[in-house]
């Protein structure tokens, strides 16, 4: 079936982003060869796409992940299956009660002020770190992926983050700690969370 000129013109954005099928692209290309204005528009939109893709939005990154993990922890247990809603409503109610209980006990905790309400740091964290003021989110992300560690909470009022090392065992934690301490441009301090 032959498409109309207007229909082919509507493919322009997808010719620009490279997602057209070979047949549709051939049809579009043939049309641009006889239509100077359409070709100029194609070039303009290609430039716009390139400019848009060059824009760098500063996303929450590892900080957002820490927040997510903290709230997932608060959310209680595993995600809800559709046919068992009441169980999870109950679980959520228990989690809220537990969270409130922990929050009430926070005042006076002797931990330098870096424990977040509801975070069981002794059970979940292996290391406590602070990052250099100039460290970018990209640097932090790359470093943490490199040492196979994840932020599980933070930042505290003093700027500390609690990390878990994904590989199990003290040797893995020690290796990760050494690697973090060596990254002096990104990490300011590293402490074993169990001490």
């Amino acid at each position, binding site marked *: 079936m032959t498409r109309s000129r207007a229909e082919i013109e509507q493919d*322009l954005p997808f010719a620009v982003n490279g997602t057209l099928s070979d047949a549709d692209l051939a049809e579009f290309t043939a049309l641009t060869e006889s239509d100077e204005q359409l070709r100029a528009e194609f070039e303009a939109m290609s430039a716009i796409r390139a400019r848009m893709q060059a824009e760098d939005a500063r996303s929450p990154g590892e900080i957002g992940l820490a927040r997510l*993990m903290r709230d997932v922890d608060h959310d209680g247990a595993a995600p809800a299956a559709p046919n068992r809603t009441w169980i999870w409503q109950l679980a959520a109610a228990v989690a809220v009660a537990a969270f409130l209980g922990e929050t009430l006990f926070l005042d006076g905790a002797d931990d330098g002020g870096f424990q977040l309400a509801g975070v069981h740091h002794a059970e979940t964290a292996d290391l406590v770190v602070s990052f250099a003021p100039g460290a970018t989110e990209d640097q932090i992300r790359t470093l943490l992926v490199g040492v196979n560690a994840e932020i599980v909470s933070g930042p505290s009022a003093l700027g500390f983050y609690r990390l878990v090392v994904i590989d199990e065992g003290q040797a893995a934690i020690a290796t990760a700690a050494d690697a973090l301490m060596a990254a002096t441009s990104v990490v300011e301090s590293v402490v074993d969370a169990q001490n």
Partner: protein
Amino acid sequence: MGDNPHQLIRQIADGDTRALAALYRAYERPVYRFIVSRLNDPHEAADILHDVFMDIWRGAASFEGRSQVRTWIFGIAYRKVIDMHRKRARVTVTDDVPEPADAAEGAEAGYAARQEAEHLRFCVDALKDDHRVAITLAFYEDMTVAEIAEVAGVPEGTIKSRLHHARKLLLHCLSGRIGARSPA
């Protein structure tokens, strides 16, 4: 742990937080960029991004695998921003070509490139939300027409039509702004 998105979703459904972290790392940036392009508020965008991944955590078990994980996630983000707009009762941006702002200063190196980026941001922001969604998904995320239609929950023809209007408005806006600043 597999990095296949469908596999990650199955693991999340089983309560695997490491799979959730892996999915977050894979999609956090593009989803955030999509959200912030529609809200222009990085703090609200970060909150919505968080809500999207909480929804994924809570709703992974209901993902049936009929769609791509990417379009499922963007669909959640799409609807959350609509909810936010409704809550704000935000005034819909019109299709009128915006007035060029005054720019008397400038002339240092890189100024032209920054101005160009600023013009583009201004003109994209001036589009109606439906148009902005289509442009953002087509040009930031390089989605196919079928994927954009799935995210927005409308037919493919509607997406093509929105993109047609969006690109005309964008070019009109850009030529107005750039033309207004060009030396006579």
